[in-house]
């Protein structure tokens, strides 16, 4: 059963990802991205990372995807439904993709992967919190500082236009 669900999710993720790239209508790509992002969240659940799956949905579906759709709607003439995007430089793009695939493949094959036991962890969020607040406090604070700077920067840039 686990296998069937897993392969269904993999197919959904990859299929919708292909649609994101190949569909000519920008909004259809954005909607296909919705399924890709949900598929990835489901894959996190398979790794017992339920909190990460929630974060994936909150940030990517609730935040970034909505932002993308907003961007599509605001940067074009608002009355046209069919905004199309076409691919240019397919040859070079394909080569770049193949190169990345090759490097990733070599990395995946050469990394010694640790197979964790397939048991449900007793708590998933508490350990993340402890690690963030104890072992990785400095990176956490640096990241929040970076986000704050980006926030202030965005406000400054949008205010300058007035």
């Amino acid at each position: 059963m686990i296998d069937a669900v897993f392969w269904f999710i993999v197919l959904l993720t990859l299929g919708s990802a292909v649609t994101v790239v190949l569909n000519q209508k920008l909004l259809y790509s954005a909607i296909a991205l919705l399924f890709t992002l949900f598929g990835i969240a489901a894959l996190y659940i398979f790794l017992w990372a339920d909190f990460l799956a929630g974060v994936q949905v909150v940030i990517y579906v609730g935040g970034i995807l909505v932002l993308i759709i907003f961007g599509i709607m605001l940067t074009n003439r608002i009355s046209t439904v069919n905004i199309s995007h076409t691919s240019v430089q397919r040859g070079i793009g394909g080569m770049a993709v193949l190169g990345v695939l090759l490097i990733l493949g070599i990395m995946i094959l050469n990394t010694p992967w640790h197979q964790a036991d397939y048991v449900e962890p007793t708590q998933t969020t508490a350990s993340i919190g402890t690690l963030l607040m104890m072992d990785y406090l400095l990176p956490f604070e640096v990241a929040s500082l970076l986000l704050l700077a980006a926030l202030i920067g965005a406000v400054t840039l949008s205010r300058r236009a007035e």
Partner: protein
Amino acid sequence: MTVDNLINWFPFGAEWPVITFVSAVLICAIPVFLFIAVYALVAIYGELKISSFMQDKVGPMGQGVGLHAGKWGLLQPVADALKLILKEDIIPESADKKLFILAPFVVFVGAFITFAALPFSQEIIVADMNIGVFYILAVSSLGVIGIILAGWSSNNKWSLYGAMRSAAQIVSYEIPAGLSIITIVMLTGTLSMQGIIISQQGIIWGFLPNWIIFNNPFSFIAFFIFFISGVAECNRTPFDIPEAESELVAGAYTEYSGMRYAFFFLSEYANMFVVSGVAVAAFLGGWNSPIPGFMDSPPWGLFWFIGKSMSLIFLMIWFRWTFPRLRVDQLMSVCWKVFLPVSFVNIFGVGIWNLLVG
């Protein structure tokens, strides 16, 4: 009644795992769907009657002989539902048909799957997840995308304006709502819905039930921020500028009719229940009795949870028929200039309270 228990309970679980899984999910999903449908009829009737009483009218009555809507108009919501089902389903010529058809599904699924984590009583919960509250906050963002899709695919300027307003509003109000939930998580130390409710048993301050709303001044404020943000996320009056019938016809739903419109309507009512349910579970003790020890057994849990939720829904209906609609800029300034700073102060205050008192 969690899905896991059902799967373990099935005698043929090991032999046909896929069938077991699918049937366990269906056994949970069908009652939830029926519950939403029945509750929506009750809430619509309530809305009709309460609004009428507030305006010094009688509302649907159904008097006399012949075809009428039952005693006190009790069958009015049924008639409304039948009317919506029987209406012609119109898809505009210039609409983007695929997305137009997809949008109601996305909105309804967004509302429907949140019910999976709602704790109806000590035993009745579809799945008591580790990340229950967070799951509800996460999947409710699906509704935004559905509304944007509806507005966009209708190819109508009113729809699009409505969708943009709605999305901006929901995305904004998600932040104070989420920050209020963080204060709960800080107090209870868990994200699981049942865990949060279990931590609210007993008595506090000598006579009050140990609900989080009474726990400290900050959580008291957090409840109101959460509830008002929740009303805004449901796009209910006074926050209904996305639908604003006097300016935008019906906002994102302008072009929808019949069954597809019914699903938007159903999702709005389902979302009201989800917001009330989360507010009840997180702040008002969930299925705990208001008087500890009194009518506290599991069957009463269902009564208390639904009773408390319906009281909050009554409050939402009350809001709708007493407050005028906010302007777009007022709406945004309330969210970003009032709720957001207050929520941050709340989180800080609860942290201090936890250190010094808790």
